[in-house]
């Protein structure tokens, strides 16, 4: 399957079919999710309406983590098989992933300020999430910091792979160090610890943001492939 999809033209032809479905799922998920999250879902019995920050904070955090895993895998494929499409995929993932990591930190601070009484603590979860954000920024800086983008591809991919070591720290930090951040409520042993009235807005927002993320990755891959093609065409015309 990887061999089949590793051909950029073939991959992009398949990707074309996903663009409109993803646009629709993203728009519908975000609209319905916003209505569910902001209007129709109940306030929390302890936190009141501040709990509504969960519906942007938690999906952002899931996407920051899963997109970093994708960035690490794409970088591994690029280092091992040296396939340029893997580098293009990684470059397309990083901007959206960095944005979600940033949103996780900011919405977390906005949630923490009224509920914990502090914007920030240097506990395991918050600190490892900040480190994740810095890995995204470092990747973007290395990948785009050279005159010829292909020169930055290898160092950026190696940095991305090192950052994968941080992912289990983010995930299990809440179990290893028991501080302000609560442990997992959804992906935990013993079943979910959340009422369905709050689970639906959460999953709808997640579906909308996930579709948006995949759409951005596909469109940015097309953008990067098109830019490379334009540069090749310009070279050819100069040469002729």
């Amino acid at each position, binding site marked *: 399957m990887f061999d089949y999809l590793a051909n950029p033209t073939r991959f992009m032809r398949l990707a074309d079919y996903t663009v409109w479905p993803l646009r629709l799922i993203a728009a519908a998920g*975000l609209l319905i999710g*916003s209505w569910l*999250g*902001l*209007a129709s879902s109940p*306030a929390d019995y302890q936190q*009141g*309406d*501040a709990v*509504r*920050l969960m519906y*942007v*904070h938690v999906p*952002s955090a899931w996407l920051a983590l899963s997109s970093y895993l994708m960035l690490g895998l794409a970088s591994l494929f690029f280092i091992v098989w040296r396939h340029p499409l893997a580098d293009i995929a990684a470059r397309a993932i990083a*901007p*959206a992933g960095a*944005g979600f990591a*940033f*949103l996780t930190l*900011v*919405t977390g601070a*906005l*949630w923490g*300020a*009224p509920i914990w009484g502090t914007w920030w603590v240097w506990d395991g979860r918050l600190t490892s999430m900040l480190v994740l954000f810095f890995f995204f920024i470092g990747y973007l800086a290395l990948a785009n910091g050279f005159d010829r983008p292909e020169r930055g591809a290898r160092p950026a991919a190696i940095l991305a792979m090192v950052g994968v070591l941080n992912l289990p720290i983010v995930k299990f930090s809440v179990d290893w160090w028991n501080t302000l951040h609560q442990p997992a409520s959804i992906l935990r042993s013993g079943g979910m610890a959340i009422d369905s009235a709050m689970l639906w807005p959460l999953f709808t927002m997640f579906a909308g*943001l996930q579709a*948006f993320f995949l*759409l*951005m990755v596909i*469109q*940015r891959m*097309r*953008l990067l492939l*098109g*830019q490379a*093609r*334009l540069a090749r*065409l*310009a070279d*050819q*015309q100069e040469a*002729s």
Partner: protein
Amino acid sequence: MAGFFAMGGYGAFVWTGWGLTLVFVLLLWLHTETRLAKLQSQLQSQAENGKTDAKNLPEA
């Protein structure tokens, strides 16, 4: 309606968090799609130029 915007006193936090999320989504979406559309029209005109150039070139 005023109660909806007040969010039980947490309005500033809730609306800032949701607002930033929305701004990020809209900006990245718009930025990506407009750049892609521009690039595709550039590629289109390049392809057309290439064709006319190729006609004027002597046979290799």
